[in-house]
């Protein structure tokens, strides 16, 4: 029998104190994306996708540009959380950590490029 207290044995193992963060962020971004995703789909269905000028005018409105930028950031966050779990579940050995790192890099890069494109349209007068 160990003389260590149950608390002493539990501390320092796994995701103590931060384990709920992943789960909670997944839910918060899920709710946000359900709303933002439906907004974008309805908006896109109402737009003429072949007409660049009309699309630029639509994205150029502050509310649309802001929501698009938030959608991109939220989608990247949600996607990173999800694909991270997939890698953690199925990839073992030497490839796991580089793959997790690559996932984070890719998500940050695509999110940054997407947001800059929206800002160029909205602010840069494209």
């Amino acid at each position, binding site marked *: 029998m160990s003389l260590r207290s149950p608390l002493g044995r539990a501390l320092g193992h796994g995701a103590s104190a931060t384990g709920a963060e992943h789960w909670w962020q997944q*839910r918060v971004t899920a709710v946000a994306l359900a709303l933002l995703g439906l907004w974008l789909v309805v908006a896109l269905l*109402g737009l003429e996708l072949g*007409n660049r000028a009309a699309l630029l005018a639509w994205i150029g409105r502050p509310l649309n540009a802001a929501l698009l930028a938030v959608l991109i950031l939220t989608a990247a966050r949600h*996607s990173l959380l999800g694909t991270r779990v997939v890698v953690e579940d199925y990839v073992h050995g030497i490839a796991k950590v580089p793959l997790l790192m690559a996932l984070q890099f890719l998500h940050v890069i695509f999110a940054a*490029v997407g947001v800059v494109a929206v800002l160029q349209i909205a602010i840069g007068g494209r």
Partner: protein
Amino acid sequence: MAAGKRPLSPHLQIYRPQWTTVLSIAHRFTGLALALSFPLLVYWLVALASGDAAYATALGWFGAWPVKLVLFAASFAFFYHLANGIRHLAWDTGRGFELSQAYASGIAVVIAAVLLTLLSWAFWLTGGGS
């Protein structure tokens, strides 16, 4: 006992696929598909910001049949992941775990995803937006 020689419990291929299990793994697959489709949304925005010639090139790509099929699949993945995600959020409140309820909500999710996908494309292809 060495880690590789431990007896295993009956594995996935033993079990008959059921609505609940298939829809569960489908949530993960559609999520992955959406992650892979995210660069398409970014590319579309970049092309829009880059000028008329770049956007014309992008339209050429998006109009090609293989890409159209990918977009169709991505739209289904979106609606499925959306509907099943709402099902998951409902489960998070502790409700709907009876087997009959899980089957009913699963079938509702599939019907909603198929209908929303087909209605969106029908609306778009008949020129609803323009």
